Structures are given as structure tokens and as C-alpha cells.
């Protein structure tokens, strides 16, 4: 087990162009599950590949277990990586796939069977050892890739979007399995994904990246509840945070905090059983002209624009539980509101978080 650190790591693919990764300084904790989250082209995979040793940094340092590894080959870094395509060796059986790292690193042949069986047992693929990769399902291939990674007991695990090739149903169960797997082996893990649900569900901490820069590092709750800038605010959450501009600030609020006033008023009167007697506090009333509604079973999503006031015409989204039986017909105007403590404030020019401004916010 080891800590991975990057110091001012930069990768420029073409001279004169903006770097794929710019001046990234990060440090993992021992045994942590760290997620790199960002849209495609955000540099998250390049960053991972530099840590793996598959890509040479333009500048900056990479440390694994306190040792600078910039000049070391992948094999000397004691890392294991699971690729998006799993990169199983198609001409070798599952057994030989898993044993390959042992063979390559000169582990005595007599120990191979024991170790391969241990790794295969851990992932429940003991019965597949004689098969070829092409005879396996997507989920089984992913487990073989994990077994091949775990078998030599690496210091660090690097996972590059390992679930993106699975169908939606399998992805959920594979995600849960990965979490349990990480708990049982406890190896420091870096996980790259563009899927915020995966990031929120699995990450101890999330590194949100965009255009090769780290926008925010924090626990899932921190990056979701307190986004550091407007990019993080809109990238996380589905539907994304509503952002409305007024003078030099951008005011943000999550769709799930934007309700009809009647619901909010009802809430203030009856204490939320989950939160005890916590009062919702003062709220900002806003009129919403609903343009259309999506019914998603457990929840309803309302799309519309604010009617009247300083935010007139700004497009916003409201998301509420479908247990709330408020009628919101498209085309009509409804009295909505968001509590003041759920407002986030961002500087309009930099997009960075700023101190709360006093109202009125109408």
C-alpha cells in the first residue's frame, strides 16, 4: 500500500497548445479510493496514464510511496491497471492471463497456481480458469482484468473507466462489487470516470477536473453540496444546478431545493422527521412559468423560466418527488421558492465561489 502524489504535473501533447494536464498537484491518502471525475477531454485519463508510466510528463513529479517515479518504467512502479477495454490477452486462457504478471515479474512458477487461485477465488471466477477471454461475458472479463491486477499484490490500483463497457444493470452490481473488493483488499485506488453516479457512490474523495485542471477536491458530499465553482456546480447533479445571474454574481440552487411555495410552507410547519425540528428558514419566492414536465416515476422534473423580478426569463429546473401532488400545468405560472440557505454565490467573471450576498433576491 502506498500514497500517490503528483507535484505540478503537466502534460503538453503539442508545443504551444494548452496542456492536456496543467499543473496538477494531488496527494492520495493511504488506502483511499480516489476518483478522477470530468467530462471527456478533461485530462483525467492522461493524468492516470502518467501515474501508470504509460505517458511521460512534460514537467512535474510523480511520487509513489514517497519515491519519485518519473524515470521508472511501469513495471518498476508496482502498480496495477485495469483498462477500459480490460485489455485481456485474447490468445491466453483466463489462468494464463492472471498468471502473466507473475511470470513477467519472475515469481517462481511453483507459486503461480496458489496465487492465481487466490485471486480468482476473491473475484469468484475460479470456474472460468480454462476459458479464453472471448468465451466470457462483459462482467466476467472485467473480473478477470481485476484478478490479473490484484494477483501480484500491487501498491496502487489504477482503474480507467472499468465499468463503461457494461450495460446499465450490470454496471450497478459491478459497482457494488468493486466497492466490496476495495474494502477487502484496502489498496490505494485511483479510479477514472466521467459518470458522476459512479464517482459519488464509490469515491472516498472526488477530484473534479476540466480542461486539464483540478477544479475541486473533496468528499462526494463536499463537491455536491458546496461546489467550488460554476463548472463543478453544473457538472455534478442531474439535472444540474440552476444558475441565474444578477449584476456581478451568479446565484445557484439545486433543482431539488426549488419547490412550489405551498410545499415549502407546508414543510416549515410540519417538521421533517429526518431532520427533527430544523426550520427551513427564510426563503426567496420566485414565479415559475412551466414550459414542460417530465414524469420519471419516483420524481418529476419541471422545466421553465422565471417570471418577473430581477431573474426574469432565466431558465430553471425544479425537481420534486412525485409524492408531492402539486399540479403544475405547462404554460401556467406558479409560485415557487427556494430557501435562502440553499443559495450558492459565484463570482460572475471568475466563476469561483464568493461570500453570500444579502437579499432581496427577487
Amino acid at each position, binding site marked *: 500500500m502506498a500514497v500517490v502524489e503528483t507535484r505540478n504535473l503537466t502534460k503538453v501533447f503539442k508545443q504551444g497548445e494548452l496542456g492536456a494536464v496543467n499543473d496538477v498537484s494531488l496527494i492520495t491518502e493511504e488506502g483511499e479510493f480516489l476518483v478522477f471525475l470530468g467530462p471527456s477531454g478533461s485530462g483525467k485519463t492522461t493524468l492516470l496514464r502518467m501515474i*501508470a508510466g*504509460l505517458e511521460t510528463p512534460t514537467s512535474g513529479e510523480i511520487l509513489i510511496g514517497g519515491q519519485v517515479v518519473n524515470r521508472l518504467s511501469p*513495471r518498476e512502479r508496482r502498480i*496495477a491497471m485495469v483498462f*477500459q477495454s480490460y*485489455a485481456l*490477452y485474447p490468445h491466453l486462457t483466463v489462468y494464463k492471463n492472471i498468471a*502473466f504478471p507473475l511470470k*513477467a*515479474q519472475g515469481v517462481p512458477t511453483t507459486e503461480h497456481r496458489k496465487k492465481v487461485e487466490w485471486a480468482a477465488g476473491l473475484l469468484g471466477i475460479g470456474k472460468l480458469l480454462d476459458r479464453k477471454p472471448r468465451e466470457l461475458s462483459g462482467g466476467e472479463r472485467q473480473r478477470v482484468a481485476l484478478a490479473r491486477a490484484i494477483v501480484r499484490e500491487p501498491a496502487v490500483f489504477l482503474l480507467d473507466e472499468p465499468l463503461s463497457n457494461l450495460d446499465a444493470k450490470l454496471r450497478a452490481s459491478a459497482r457494488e462489487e468493486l466497492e466490496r473488493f476495495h474494502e477487502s483488499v484496502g489498496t490505494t485506488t485511483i479510479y477514472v470516470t466521467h459518470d458522476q453516479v459512479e464517482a459519488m457512490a464509490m469515491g472516498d474523495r472526488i477530484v473534479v477536473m476540466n480542461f486539464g485542471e483540478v477544479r475541486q477536491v473533496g468528499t462526494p458530499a463536499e463537491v455536491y453540496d458546496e461546489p467550488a465553482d460554476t463548472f463543478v456546480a453544473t457538472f455534478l447533479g442531474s439535472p444540474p444546478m440552476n444558475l441565474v445571474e444578477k449584476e456581478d454574481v451568479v446565484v445557484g440552487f439545486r433543482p431539488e431545493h426549488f419547490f412550489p411555495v405551498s410545499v415549502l410552507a407546508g414543510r416549515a410547519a410540519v417538521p421533517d422527521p429526518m431532520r427533527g425540528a430544523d426550520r427551513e428558514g427564510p426563503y426567496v419566492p420566485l414565479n415559475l412559468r412551466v414550459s414542460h414536465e417530465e414524469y420519471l416515476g419516483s420524481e418529476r422534473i419541471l422545466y421553465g423560466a422565471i417570471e418577473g423580478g430581477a431573474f426574469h426569463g432565466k431558465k430553471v429546473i425544479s425537481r420534486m418527488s412525485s409524492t408531492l401532488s402539486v399540479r403544475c400545468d405547462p404554460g401556467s405560472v406558479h409560485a415557487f421558492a427556494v430557501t435562502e440557505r440553499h443559495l450558492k454565490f459565484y463570482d460572475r467573471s471568475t466563476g469561483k465561489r464568493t461570500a453570500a450576498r444579502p437579499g432581496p433576491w427577487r
Partner: protein
Amino acid sequence: MAVTPGKPASSGASRSPILGAVMFAPSVLFIVLLIGVPFCLAVLYAFSDARIGSSGLHFVGLENFRSILQSPSFRKALRNSIVFTLCAQAIVIVCSNVLSIALEKPFRGRGLVRFLILLPWVAPVSLGTIGWKWILDSIYSVITWVLVAFHFVKPYSAPMWLGEPHLAMASVILVHCWRLIPFSTVIMLAGRSAISKEIPEAAAIDGAGFWRTTFQINLPMMAPILSVAVLFGIIFTFTDMTVVYILTAGGPFDSTQTLPSLAFATGIAGSDLAAGAAISLFLVPVLVLVAYLMLRVAHRAEVV
């Protein structure tokens, strides 16, 4: 490498059988006229006493085969053909592999280098080989001239590249390799680029070095395409007579005579059509066997 032919979406050919037949006809005609008829003629001649200029054909049974099997020059040609094919293929496979590794990653001027490497294949065989004939000439050879200039050999004892049996064989093999390597390299490059980039990367992370990645990952994954390259290479080499004919015409003392060149020398130049046909028929079982073996290997090694 598994290529599953898609089912024809709508059967235009079945709706209009004439169109299907018309589209199919040229290739059938080509095969029948240029391969089928000569092959049948060769079989017919091999069992007859046909000679150039003779009017009648008499069936002589296995007489032609009996006589060529007893002739020392046939046995020598058979041995030479095998040596020629095996040596040339070994060199071609190794060199084209090395070249394909070198040409795989982009570098400045790669396009030009690829073009230059392809040239020997694109240029007409006879022209290229005549060029080599001059390079290896006993008097004007540039190779000899360079060796003399560097004092590796004395001018009066310079090697006769095409005049000494072993050197002549080596020269013929090397010129043939020069010609076949581009073809083989292109096939290897295609096979190499079919391997997902992540596989060698995974091998690097798993701790495999260059040799292990090459011999345990890349080459086995390229096995089907490699066997295609070998199959074509063997057929091109075993049946080739251009290089031999132009460089040495089989000499000195039949030391570079191969089956095709012997068949030509006997059947056309020596006007004994029947013996020439019988010699060339000896190529058939070998080629059929090679084709069968290689297709089996390709089928079994099918990956992904």
C-alpha cells in the same frame, strides 16, 4: 480476425439470376482459361510424349515421371527449391517483423520510408532483378568495388557472386527476399495495427519487457495474419522462377536450379513439353499441402 460475412440484405441476384451470372462470369472465365485449361494441359502432357513441334500425342503412362525421378538434376532442383523457400521465408519473416515494429510508431519521414520500402514490390520483377544482376556482376559489381576499396578482399580474388555455387544460391535467396519483404511487411503492419493499443500497454504494466511482449503477446496475437504472410510467401517463392532465371539461369552447374526454372528449361527451352509438365506437376501436391496447413493454422489461431 473472425470475419463473418453478413447475410445479403436483399437478394438482388436471386431476383435476377442473369445479373448474378454476369457479375460472376469474369472471375470464372479468368480461372478456367488462365488456370484450369493450362493445368489440364499440363496433366495431359505429363502423361504423353509431347514435344514442341511434334504433331501427335501418344499416351506413355508414368514414363515421364519415372525418368525425371531418376535424373540427378531434378533431385538437385527439388532440394534447391526447398532450401530456397525455407531460407527465403525465414529471412523474410524475421526482417518484415523487425520492419513492421520499426514502422509502427509515427516518426518524422515515416511516410517516405514506408514508400521506399514498398518500392521493390511495386517495381517490375524483371527490372529490379536486372538491377541486381549488375550489382552482383563479376566485373562491375559495386559490392565488390566497395569491399576492395575497404581492403576486405583483393581485386584478383574478389568473390564471384553469381559464379560460385554457394554464393550464387545465397545471392538468389537474398534478391528474392529483397523482393518479398515489402509485401510481408505490409501484411505484418496490418496485423500489428489490428492489436488494440491497450494490450501491449497492459503487458508493460504487468511487467513484461520488449522481448516478452513481442514473443508472448504480439506475435501469438498476430499468428493468423502471420500464417497468411507465410502461406503467400511460400507460394510466391516455391513457384518463382524470374529471379533465378534472370540472375543465374539455374547455374553454375545447376546449383541454383529450382523446380520452376528446371521445368522451364526442360519444357520450353529444351522443347521436351512432356518432361517439363511432369516436373511442374510436382509443385502441385506441395502447394496444396501448404495451403491446407496454413488455412488450418489460421482457423485454429483465430483470436478475439
